[in-house]
């Protein structure tokens, strides 16, 4: 415990120092007015334009199902080779670039087409699936495989032992990722693809909060009912329907692709072979954008990580069997569902409308979303704990018997989320907070693709670095989950 307490203390100190460097100003003249208009819209949602709504919803689902299902298959294949260094490195790279950035890149090649949305989800999700599947397979009971006759074919061994043992976990992870995929797909609308985000952005920008509220309510209901809809037997049907509703095709001009790959994304100085010019180009980029972008991304990440942690500790009892009976708990669970169904990007966007451009809306967005995700998982784990019959009640039960037992798991989940939060800080930059994403977005707007590529690469490297630090902490503090065995 002292080690866990120490690490928590240091993260809190870092966050406090980060706050000193951050910009938390409220810049709108009358945030309360905008907030009250927003609340009015949400109390009187308007379901006028149902056909637009239904089409945006189906397209959101179609991108998500296509991308996630194919990514799960590719990810599983890669997970089998995860012992090889280059497979791990490849997966780390493709998942460290956010789906919105993949979309921005592929829009240049395949346009605003169904193919772009499919690929934007497919690529990072494949990397994530590969990593998580490899971990799940690694943690399965090895005795089952060792007890087989050694000349059993590798495929039969895999099928009857590791795959089957891991199947319940693989399946529930795919379902969880589908939920994430639907959120990502919705957000892809903000860069112009025809999903919910596209409609939401225009409604919000026009101040039409009643229409926006209607869309969001439908979205929440969809996410909440996923667990009833995602039956294993129906998955092939859903996937097929997704491909039929919106076939992932695009008119690709190969000469344009050639130009993009050979000229657009390669700095002019490098095309001419002028290394000193390239170095001074890079140095300027480094001093004017990269340093500040990295600094702001990290500051935002550390503040959001700790504030998510604090809010999680407040929230998880609301959804836990230990502290509330069925009816109030259902209320707590619904609150968590609404909070986690809201993509951070959307929360940040709405926060920006109300509070004006600063780090504050980004911190609020990241905190609300991430704490709801962790609190939900922690509440589930708390239900698995076993206690003595004479256990204490209420606050004592929380501080003396529950939190000490769950604290390790709590930190493990936070370390998993760390990298996710960093990825999100980058894309929140597209809303105007000067993280790396802000500069990437500007580079795309100014059609400086070479600059955008360097910045995306830096973002990816930063993600990989933080991910590795998180892995180091998890190992050092023995926060790995227990293998399932019989």
């Amino acid at each position, binding site marked *: 415990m002292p080690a866990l307490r120490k690490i928590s203390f240091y993260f809190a100190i870092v966050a406090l120092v980060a706050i000193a460097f951050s910009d938390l100003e409220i810049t709108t003249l009358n945030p309360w007015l905008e907030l009250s208009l927003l609340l009015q819209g949400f109390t009187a949602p308007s379901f006028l334009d149902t056909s637009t709504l239904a089409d945006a919803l189906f397209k959101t689902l179609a991108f998500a199902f296509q991308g996630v299902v194919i990514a799960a298959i590719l990810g599983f294949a890669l997970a089998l080779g995860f012992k090889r260094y280059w497979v791990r490195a490849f997966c780390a790279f493709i998942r460290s670039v956010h789906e919105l950035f993949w979309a921005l890149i592929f829009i240049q090649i395949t346009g605003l087409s169904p193919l772009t949305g499919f690929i934007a989800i497919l690529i990072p999700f494949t990397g994530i699936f590969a990593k998580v599947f490899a971990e799940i397979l690694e943690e399965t009971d090895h*005795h089952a495989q060792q*007890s087989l*006759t*050694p*000349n059993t074919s590798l495929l*039969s*061994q895999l099928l*009857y032992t590791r795959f089957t043992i891991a199947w*319940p976990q693989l399946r529930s992870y795919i379902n969880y990722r589908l939920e994430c995929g639907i959120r990502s797909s919705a957000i892809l609308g903000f860069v112009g693809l025809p999903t919910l985000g596209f409609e939401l952005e225009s409604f919000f920008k026009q101040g039409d909060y009643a229409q926006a509220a209607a869309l969001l309510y439908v979205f929440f209901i969809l996410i909440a009912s996923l667990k009833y809809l995602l039956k294993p037997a129906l998955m092939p049907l859903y996937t097929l329907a997704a491909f039929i509703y919106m076939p992932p095709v695009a008119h690709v001009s190969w000469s344009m692709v050639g130009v993009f790959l050979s000229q657009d994304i390669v700095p002019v100085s490098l095309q001419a072979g002028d290394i000193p010019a390239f170095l001074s180009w890079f140095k300027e980029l480094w001093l004017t954008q990269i340093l500040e972008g990295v600094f702001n991304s990290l500051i935002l990440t550390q503040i959001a990580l700790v504030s998510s942690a604090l809010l999680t500790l407040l929230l998880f009892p609301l959804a836990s069997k230990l502290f509330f009976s069925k009816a109030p708990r259902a209320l707590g669970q619904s609150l968590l569902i609404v909070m986690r169904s809201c993509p951070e990007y959307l929360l940040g966007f709405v926060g920006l409308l109300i509070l004006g451009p600063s780090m504050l809306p980004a911190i609020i967005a990241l905190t609300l979303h991430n704490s709801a995700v962790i609190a939900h998982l922690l509440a589930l784990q708390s239900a698995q704990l076993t206690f003595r019959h004479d256990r204490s009640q209420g606050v004592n039960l929380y501080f003396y018997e529950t939190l000490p037992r769950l604290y390790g798991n709590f930190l493990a989940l936070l370390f998993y989320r760390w990298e996710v939060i960093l990825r999100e800080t980058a894309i929140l930059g597209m809303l105007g907070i000067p993280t790396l994403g802000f500069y990437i977005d500007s580079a795309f707007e100014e059609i400086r693709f070479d600059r955008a590529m360097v910045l995306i690469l830096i973002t990816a490297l930063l993600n990989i670095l933080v991910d590795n630090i998180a892995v180091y902490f998890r190992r050092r503090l023995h926060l790995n989950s227990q293998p399932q065995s*019989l």
Partner: protein
Amino acid sequence: MGFELRHRKLGYGAHTVLENLDLNIQSGETVAIIGKSGAGKSTLLLALREQLAQQVAWCPQQPGLVPTLSVHHNIYMGQLEQHHFLVNLWRLLRPGTIVKQDIQAICQTLQIQEHQFTPCQKLSGGQLQRVSIGRALYSNKEILLGDEPISALDEFHAHKTLQLLCEHFTTLVVSLHDVDLALNCCQRIIALKEGKILFDKSSSLVSKSDIHQVYN
């Protein structure tokens, strides 16, 4: 087909468990390995398995069953290497009548027939051990290597099951903690103590003082 170890040293890394081991087990023998915990029974069995891994039915101490698969499929896994992958894939989805009958017969002898299609994670320790024995019986092998294969069964069923195994397999090498059972059912007893073979003789020649020496 038998086992042979000559001047072998067995252990894990730098740690030696058994030293200078000389052992010869002929086809047709039924052998019990006895000794205190940590005497090296499991180490010896693992070394024997290494010699003929493809030809033996293996009953490890920790059964290593797949919790989410049924008893039927866990028993079927005894023949996994004898069929093509696609056959195995098909049988995971549809057990097939003949296979079902064969495995049902095994389940009946082991008295777990009502659980043939129950996932193993719902079974008790004793039932799991019977599934593990079922897999060994189904594997079409002549040799059985078992590490405490019947430790979780009650006295009556342990005796019955060990007899069944002795009749089914031509050659059998098992570690047992129940000495009376070993003397009753196996022709030959190998006793391990302090990293060595304390004695290795026909069970009819093992005396009370021999046994006393093994455990004290």
